[in-house]
C-alpha cells in the first residue's frame, strides 16, 4: 500500500471520531493545521503533527523557498569544512513521506477572526490551529549607515543562502594583509555564539591563504557567548590575528559607510577591506501581522508555545520569547515537538505530555577543535526555565575537542534528517 492510500484510509476513519468530539469542525473534514515557515521550527512542527496524527490532521506548510539553506554550519562552509550544497535541503520528505501539503509562497497576512492565512498569490487557506515560525527580520536601521543596499558590500549572512556565498567570496578575495571588520548584533539575536564562530572560520581561511590579515570585532556588547573558550582558541590557533573590541572600549559604532568601508567609533575610525555587519533583529514580519508580538518578539505560553495573544496560534523558534532558551535551531526543533504534541492533543484528543525542552549549541574554533554549551529546560508559568546545563572547559584535551567536533557533524545530520525526512 502506498503512503497516500494509507493516509487517506486512516484519515477518514479518524475524521468520524473527530467530528463527534469537535462539533465546530464540519462532518467529514479533517482538522487543519497551517504552518508558516519551513525552517528549524516550522519544518519540525509540520512533520511531527503529520507523522504522529497518522492522517487525522491535514497539515499545510507555507514556505517561500523551495530549498532551505541552514544557517547552522554556514560558518563551516566559510571555513571550507562543508560544501555549500551540503547545507541545502528540500521538502520532498515532508510532502512524500508525511503527506504535508507544501505551498511554496509567501504568507502575507493572517485573519485571526476568520482563521485564514492570505498568500502572495491571492489565495487563502483556513486553519484550526496556526503555527508561525518565520525566523528573524533584520533591523538594518540599528546600525547607522547600514541598509538592504549596503548588505552586498558588508554581508550580514544571517539568513544563510546567497549572502553567505558572497561573504565567503569577499573573504577569499580580500587583499593580502588587509583588515576584516566583524560587527556582531546586540542581544537578543539568533545564535549567540554564531558571530564568534564566524570569526574563527574566517581566521581559519586567512591562516591558510592570507596569514598577515587582521580581524577586528567591533562588538555592541561587553561580553559574549562562550567568550573564554573562543578567546583561548583564538590565542592558540590564530595568535595576533583577532582583536575583539567591546562596546565599553570603542564607545559605540556611530556610523558606517559602505562606499568607503569605514566604521566610525568614539575610539577610532576603522577602515575595512572586507566586512560582515549583523544588525539587531526582530521576529519575522508575519508574526507582527498576526498581532502576536509585543514589540520585536512574541510572548508565548511556556507549556505549549501558544501565543499569549491568540490561543489558536503557536509561535516557535527565533520569533518567540522563549527565555531562558537561546534562539537556536536546536531550541526551535525542541519547541516544535512540544507544540506539535499540544496541537494534536487539542485537535484529536491524543495524549499531551509534560513539555520538555533542551538545547545544545556546538561551535567550531579551528580544525578538530569543537566546543559546546547545552541545557535542559522546563516550563513554569512565567518562562522556560533552565534546570541544568554544561559548557566545554578551557584547556580540554585535543581528543575531547575532536570528539566534540565529530559530535556536531552527527547532530547536523540528525537534526536535518529530523526536519526534512
Amino acid at each position, binding site marked *: 500500500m502506498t503512503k497516500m492510500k494509507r493516509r487517506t484510509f486512516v484519515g477518514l476513519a479518524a475524521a468520524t471520531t473527530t467530528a463527534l468530539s469537535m462539533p465546530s469542525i464540519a462532518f467529514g473534514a479533517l482538522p487543519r493545521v497551517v504552518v508558516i515557515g519551513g525552517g528549524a521550527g516550522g519544518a519540525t512542527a509540520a512533520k511531527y503533527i503529520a507523522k504522529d496524527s497518522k492522517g487525522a490532521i491535514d497539515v499545510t506548510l507555507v514556505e517561500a523557498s523551495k530549498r532551505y539553506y541552514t544557517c547552522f554550519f554556514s560558518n563551516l562552509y566559510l571555513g571550507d569544512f562543508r560544501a555549500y550544497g551540503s547545507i541545502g535541503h528540500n521538502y520532498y520528505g515532508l510532502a512524500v513521506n508525511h503527506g504535508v501539503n507544501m505551498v511554496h509562497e509567501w504568507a502575507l497576512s493572517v485573519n485571526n477572526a476568520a482563521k485564514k492565512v492570505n498568500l502572495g498569490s491571492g489565495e487563502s487557506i483556513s486553519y484550526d490551529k496556526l503555527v508561525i515560525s518565520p525566523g528573524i527580520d533584520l533591523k538594518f536601521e540599528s546600525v547607522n549607515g547600514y541598509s538592504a543596499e549596503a548588505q552586498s558590500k558588508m554581508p550580514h549572512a544571517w539568513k544563510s543562502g546567497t549572502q553567505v556565498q558572497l561573504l565567503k567570496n569577499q573573504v577569499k578575495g580580500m587583499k593580502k594583509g588587509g583588515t576584516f571588520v566583524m560587527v556582531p548584533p546586540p542581544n537578543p539575536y539568533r545564535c549567540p555564539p554564531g558571530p564568534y564562530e564566524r570569526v574563527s572560520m574566517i581566521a581559519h581561511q586567512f591562516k591558510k591563504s592570507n596569514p598577515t590579515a587582521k580581524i577586528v570585532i567591533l562588538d555592541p556588547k561587553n561580553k559574549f557567548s562562550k567568550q573564554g573558550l573562543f578567546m583561548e582558541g583564538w590565542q592558540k590557533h590564530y595568535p595576533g590575528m583577532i582583536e575583539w573590541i567591546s562596546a565599553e572600549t570603542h564607545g559605540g559604532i556611530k556610523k558606517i559607510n559602505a562606499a568607503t568601508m569605514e566604521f566610525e567609533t568614539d575610539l577610532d575610525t576603522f577602515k575595512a577591506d572586507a566586512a560582515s555587519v549583523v544588525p539587531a533583529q526582530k521576529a519575522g514580519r508575519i508574526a507582527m501581522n498576526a498581532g502576536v508580538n509585543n514589540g520585536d518578539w512574541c510572548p508565548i505560553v511556556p507549556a505549549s508555545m501558544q501565543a499569549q495573544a491568540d490561543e489558536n496560534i503557536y509561535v516557535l523558534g527565533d520569533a518567540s520569547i522563549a527565555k531562558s532558551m537561546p534562539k537556536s535551531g536546536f531550541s526551535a526543533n525542541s519547541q516544535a515537538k512540544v507544540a506539535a504534541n499540544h496541537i494534536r492533543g487539542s485537535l484529536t484528543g491524543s495524549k499531551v505530555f509534560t513539555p520538555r525542552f*533542551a538545547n545544545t549549541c556546538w561551535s567550531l574554533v579551528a580544525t578538530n577543535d569543537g566546543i559546546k554549551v547545552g541545557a535542559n529546560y522546563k516550563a513554569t508559568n512565567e518562562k522556560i526555565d533552565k534546570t541544568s546545563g554544561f559548557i566545554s572547559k578551557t584547556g580540554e584535551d585535543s581528543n575531547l575537542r575532536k570528539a566534540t567536533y565529530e559530535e556536531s557533524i552527527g547532530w547536523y545530520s540528525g537534526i536535518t*534528517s529530523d526536519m526534512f525526512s
Partner: protein
Amino acid sequence: MINKSYADQKQLVGADVDYGEHLFGECVTCHNSTGLGQGIPKITGMKTSQFITKILAYKTKEKENAVMQMVAERLGEEEINSLALYLSKLK
C-alpha cells in the same frame, strides 16, 4: 534511586509506548532517525537491555559525554522504560 538490576527485568515498569515515541523525539534531534551513525552512534535497533544499561551509565556519570549525561539526568524510570519499550518496537 534507580537500580541497575532492572536492566535485566523482563517487565518494563510504567512503560507507555506512546510516551516512548514522544520522548524519542528528543533523541532524534542528534541521533539520525534514518540510522546513520556518523559522529553520533546509531540508536535505532538497540536492544532494550543495552539501551537501559547505557542510559544508566550516563545517569550515574560513569560514562562520559556532557550532552548524554544531561539527557539521562532528567530521565526517570518511567521515561527510560517507555523509551526502551518504544525502541524495542523499532526495526
